C-alpha cells in the first residue's frame, strides 16, 4: 500500500482514537475526580492522543521510508494539523451533546412527544440555562467569584468570544442580532 494512503488511513482514525481515550478517561475522572470539567477531560484526551497517533504514523509510514529532514518536518506538521483539526471536529460533536441548547430542547420534546414553546421555557428556563453555564465556566476556570461577583479568570474562552464577534462582523451579521452589543 502506498505510504500516502497509509498516512491517510491512520490520520482519519483520529476521532476514533480520541473517543476511545475519552471513554476511558471520562470514567476514571468520574470515579476519582468527579468535579473535573468534562471539557478539561476532553483536552487531556486530545493531548494524550498525540503519543499513540505519532507512534502509529511512525510504525505505519515513517519507518518504511527514507525521508529528508525537511520531508519529516512537513509530515509532522501535516499530521499535527490534521489530527488536531479532526479532534476539534469530534470535540464539537461531543460538545453538542454536552452544552447545546438545541439538543437539550430536542431531548425535552422527545421525552414529552410534543411540547408548546411555553412548556419548553418552563422546563428549560433562562435561570437553569445560565446557572449551568456559570458553573461550567467556573469549573473551567474561565470565571471566578470574588465577593459574590463574577469576574474573568483565565482568558482563553474570552479571546475565543472576541474572535467570534470579529467573525460575525466579517460575515456581515447585523450588530442588532447579537447579544454581545446589548447593555455593554
Amino acid at each position, binding site marked *: 500500500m502506498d505510504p500516502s*494512503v497509509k498516512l491517510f488511513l491512520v490520520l482519519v482514525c483520529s476521532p476514533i482514537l480520541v473517543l476511545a481515550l475519552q471513554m476511558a478517561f471520562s470514567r476514571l475522572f468520574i470515579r476519582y475526580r468527579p468535579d473535573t470539567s468534562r471539557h478539561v477531560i476532553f483536552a487531556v484526551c486530545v493531548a494524550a492522543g498525540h503519543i499513540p497517533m505519532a507512534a502509529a504514523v511512525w510504525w505505519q509510514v515513517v519507518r518504511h521510508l527514507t525521508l529528508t529532514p525537511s520531508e519529516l518536518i512537513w509530515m509532522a506538521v501535516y499530521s499535527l494539523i490534521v489530527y488536531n483539526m479532526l479532534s476539534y471536529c469530534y470535540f464539537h460533536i461531543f460538545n453538542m*451533546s454536552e452544552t447545546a441548547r438545541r439538543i437539550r430542547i430536542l431531548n425535552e420534546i422527545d421525552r414529552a412527544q410534543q411540547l408548546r414553546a411555553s412548556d419548553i421555557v418552563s422546563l428549560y428556563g433562562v435561570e437553569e440555562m445560565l446557572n449551568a453555564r456559570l458553573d461550567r465556566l467556573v469549573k473551567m476556570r474561565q470565571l471566578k467569584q470574588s465577593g459574590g461577583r463574577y469576574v474573568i479568570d483565565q482568558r482563553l474562552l474570552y479571546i475565543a468570544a472576541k474572535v467570534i464577534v470579529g467573525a460575525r462582523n466579517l460575515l456581515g451579521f447585523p450588530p442588532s442580532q447579537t447579544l454581545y452589543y446589548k447593555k455593554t
Partner: protein
Amino acid sequence: MSHYILIIGVLIFIICLGLHILVWRWYHPRKEVIILFLIFLIIPAVIGIAGLGLNWFGLLPGGTGVIPISAFDWPLVFLLHFSLAGAYILSYPAIQAVSPSLAILLVVESSAPQGLTSNELRSHFTVEDLLEARLRDLKDGYLAVESDGWFRLTWRGLLLVRFNRFLRILLGLPTIGG
C-alpha cells in the same frame, strides 16, 4: 512528504473561506448549513474528482506536471482541506447563534474590574435570546416542526437525539446535557 500537499490543502480551504465570506456579505442565505456544505465540501470534492478524472484520461493540460504531487497524495490534500473545513463548519453555529457562555464572558469583561452579580448577569439575557431563536433554528433545520403551537421532532431530530444519547452512554455520562 512534499510541502505542496500542505500548501495546496490550505489554499483550497482559504479559497472556500473567501467564497463563503463573499456569499454571506452579498446574500446571507437562509439555509446556511446547506450552503456551507456546498462551498466547503461538495464543490471542492466535485472539482477534485473531475480533475483526477481528467488527469486519468490525459485531458488535463500539462498533466501531473502542473501541480507537482502524485495521484496518491491528492487524498492527503483533500483530507487536510476537509479537516480544516469540518472544523470551521462545526464552529459556525457558535458564530451564527449567540452562545450564552461566550456572551457571559463578554458581558462580565465589559463590567471589569468590579464584575457582575448573578442577578446583574441574568438581566442581560432574555427568553427570546436564549430559547426562541433556537426554536426557530430547529424549524429551519427541519429538526422539529410546529403545528398548532405544538413542537414535534422530525425523523432528523429524532436521529440526532438518539445519536447524542448513544454517545453519552458510551462516555458514561448522564444522557441529557445542555
